[in-house]
């Protein structure tokens, strides 16, 4: 004879509702959960409060621009070119004749601009010793966060040598002070970065002169939670006494822009759940083993019925 099949015979434990024996298993489950939760919480990283993802922003040049050329004739002789009627009006005797062009190129045909080239040639301003350029963009992010804003790139250079050109080439990087909340569209900064372009200000409108100053404009811009800056590590100043001066900016849009965001509740729970579950399973296994000790050794009161014992019938 050989053993062909094994059939376990059970000893069944019965107990009334709300007895200690009845509550033992729920207690184990709850205890396992609480312990798992506590360990996950105290070991850190349970709630993922910020997360990053990578995307390519959609950037378009707004054709809003301000150029200041500082010349060798000294302070007060700077020449200005801007796309703002109000500024042009106030700077009427300081305007510079500029031949400017801009192009946006989608190099990889993915529907997003990858390169923005801006070239300005100014003539008749004399020797240029310094340039300040402010360029405005429409900037939007998709994916985990939905962000639409106006942003700026600022480029400047000055030199004791008179120049014939300034060439800046860099990435338009996102600068965040805090994570962007995911789950809704954020357009808190979808207004012009230039205070003199707000509300469609026209020439001759009222204007406190202090708001024209670049430190004031940049200070206001830098107060924002999200902003952009031109990460141009290799500016080239071509020195030379030239009858014209060329400012050329190549603004590259990063294909892998890291964005810090605050996840939605579901996403937070997703990461929390896997941590809790992983620890819970360990403790649930331990409690299960201990259950045998509790019931087998009659640590709690139960009524034990064996499958070998004939079942009494009620009539």
């Amino acid at each position: 004879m050989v053993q062909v099949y094994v059939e376990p015979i059970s000893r069944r434990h019965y107990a009334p509702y709300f007895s200690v024996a009845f509550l033992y298993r729920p207690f184990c489950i709850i205890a396992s959960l609480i312990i798992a939760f506590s360990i996950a919480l105290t070991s850190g990283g349970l709630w993922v409060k910020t997360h990053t993802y990578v995307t390519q922003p959609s950037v378009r040049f707004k054709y809003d621009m301000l150029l200041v050329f500082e010349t060798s004739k000294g302070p007060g002789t700077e020449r200005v070119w801007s796309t703002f009627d109000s500024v042009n009006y106030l700077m009427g005797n300081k305007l510079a004749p500029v031949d400017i062009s801009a192009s946006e190129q989608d190099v990889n045909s993915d529907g997003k601009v990858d390169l923005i080239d801006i070239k300005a040639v100014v003539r008749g301003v004399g020797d240029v010793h310094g340039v300040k350029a402010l360029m405005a963009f429409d900037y939007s992010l998709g994916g985990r966060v939905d962000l639409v804003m106006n942003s700026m790139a600022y480029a400047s250079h000055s030199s004791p040598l008179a120049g014939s050109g300034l060439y800046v080439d860099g990435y338009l990087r996102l600068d965040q002070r805090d994570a962007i909340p995911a789950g809704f569209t954020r357009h808190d900064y979808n207004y012009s970065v230039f205070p003199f372009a707000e509300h469609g200000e026209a020439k001759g409108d009222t204007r406190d002169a202090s708001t024209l100053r670049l430190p004031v404009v940049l200070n206001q811009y830098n107060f924002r939670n999200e902003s952009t800056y031109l990460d141009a590590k290799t500016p080239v100043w071509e020195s030379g006494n030239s009858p014209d001066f060329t400012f050329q900016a190549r603004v590259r849009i990063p294909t892998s822009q890291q964005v810090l965001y605050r996840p939605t509740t579901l996403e937070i729970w997703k990461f929390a759940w896997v941590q809790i579950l992983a620890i819970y399973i360990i403790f649930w296994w331990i409690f299960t083993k201990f259950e045998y000790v509790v019931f087998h050794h009659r640590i709690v009161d139960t009524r034990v019925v064996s499958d070998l014992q004939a079942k009494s019938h009620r009539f």
Partner: protein
Amino acid sequence: MTNTASLRTKAGRRASLLAGVLVGALLATGADAQAATRPTAESAGLNAPSTYGIDWTDVPTEPTKTVVKVTAENCLCDLTEGTCDANCCCDPDCDSNEKAQFTECATCVYDGANAAMNGKVCLPEGRSPPSLEYCLPSSTVSRVNLLSSSSLGVVEQRKADMSFLSQQLCIKDDNSASLGKYFLDPGFATDDILKSSVTLQSERFWNPVPAAASETQPKYRHNDTIGVVKAASEPLLPGNKFVLPGATFSGVCGWTNVIGYNMPLPASAASEDATCLVPIDDTLSKSCTTLLNAKYLVNDLKLAKTPGSSATPTEAPTISSMKYRSRIGGKLTDLTGTVPAATFTDGSGGSGAADTCNFAVVEAHYVITHDGSGSISSFAVDLVFADVMTSTRWSAVYNANGALADPGNPSSVRVKYTVSWKLSAETVVPRSGAPGYVVGAPLLAGTKDTSSGKNAVARLKDGLTIPGAGPDGRCSGNGKSTVRFGMSQSSSCAIPLSQDNLKTFCQGSGDKAVADYLYDLISVNGVLGGTTPDKTKAPGSSVPLPAQLMDGLLYGTLDSNYDLSAKTVMVAAWANANYENIADWKSCDATDTTDCATELTAAEQLTKPSGDSAMSWDETTKTCKNVAVGVNIDVLTAKVGHLDHAQSKVQRVKVSWNLADWTYTDFPWDNAADDRQDFMLKSTVHFVEMAQDAPEGVKPASPPILPTLPADVFYPFLSAGPAGGRAAASAAWCVALVAAIFVAWVTARGDDSY
């Protein structure tokens, strides 16, 4: 007529061209060659248009439209018609000889069909055509244009590679009409399409979208521009609007402050002063007749009472006050009479008023009165004039005597304008906040004044001040630095002293007020009418120098030369304190009423240092020890009010001396009587935040029964609010209880037979 003329012109040009060729040929052969000569007379005009010559024999009588094929097989490097583009391997204009001259490249393999181009550098020709791999031998149809449209891409059919995998995946038969994604030629574009496209992209172009014209209102509204009304032959301000000089991008003055109705200038007490610079170089003579001239700023200035072209003008501004500011030291003297227009006196550095803009307006403070319903009633102005000298003139003044270590002559003059608005009955008094101080706003201060048994505060317009430097960096009684709330500061200025001067001063033998000493030192040799100072004279030290420069403010010993000495100084605890109600300026101790924290009586102010702190001279090291170089003001601040909107107030003020040792660096070649060195006065203000209890609620929270859990225990649900921790704890226990009951029911295994 036109055609005939055109033909004649062309015939003429051909003749000229032929002549040019002949001349060129002659020059080339050298036969009778002559150097080109300059045209007899230069003239203005436009150059002839530059166009390519037309070979009329090639022009068809009936032109037919060339179908442009935008296919992937285009040769993108063929950029020149009629000639071979170097290294453009697909250029049909290149013959085999030219292609043979292309740059060699041993490792290069040509993508196209021409195997002869292998081993040559080929320019990019565009993307290679799409191709499908067929399971057909190459001898069968090798190329097919799948669709008849001329504007579509061409798909090339090619034999699949013989590798195992390629043979499994090659195309046996194809009935798909798809060629992938492509742009179709949109055909004829109508004017409407252009308009709508321009409209869609209107915000992305150099020409901004024109703003809608605003309607003219019968009354001014907030921030409307204010018109100026022109009388016959009177000049106008730029744009026929009330515009004041303001800073341009370099800080130099331009007409950039466009004043708005009911908009003060500067916008608030904490914002920057509305100042700008006027260079005093060669352009000063022009600035003198424009920016600095009272003619434009005052005399001919009449504002439109209401908007519109036919508005009635106000009268020219009432002159509330007129003062003249001295060139050295900046002392203000009252002027009477009519407002003088600025005039420029030319010269070459001689005595008197040469190279000077006389009666230039360096400060103008307008107060505009309105009726509260959009009309301007009148306006008044406080003026400060000065004689502004050119930099050449300043050089003459500073360098004439050579008595200064560093001349520091200025290169520009700073001018200042303010505008404030009021209803007819109001007195405009700026606040530094309401009720708490705004960081950066002047610290309100004044001296206690008594009349008819009543007390009030003579509030200082600039707020509390400490000694500061004048335009040339030297100490000036009129170049004070305003103490601004929340901004700890250090302000320094220079006093030039020779070794003898320092010794005399230190030993207490000096008998000149420091302002007089500095004035005489700079304005010597009669350039500004001053007298050569006696070398032995030195600043007096009976009253410490900082106290002299502050006119006795915060100095507790009465001295008749200094108006503010021994006067009780009040600092406003709250920024909106009314100066006519002195009770608002006091915060006295409930038990000791003589201790009023922000009130400094003469006894609580500074006295001349004595004892161990007294000034003493060390001849060996040429050092004057324990010089009172400045005041130090400690300001204790506190926050009051709701946590989210706390207001800052001043709790207590205390003053003390800053003491330092002044050492004359004694070089052997120095003349003890004449060679002066700059010694620095330094005053400081220290804002200290009071150590306060944590913010309290009206009702303290009940102590927790359950253990406190971290604030972020249930972060996604309870992430906001200061009470997050406690709420989270409660929620945690509730959730645990509910879960326990639920699990108990679920895990109970039926059958209650036993």
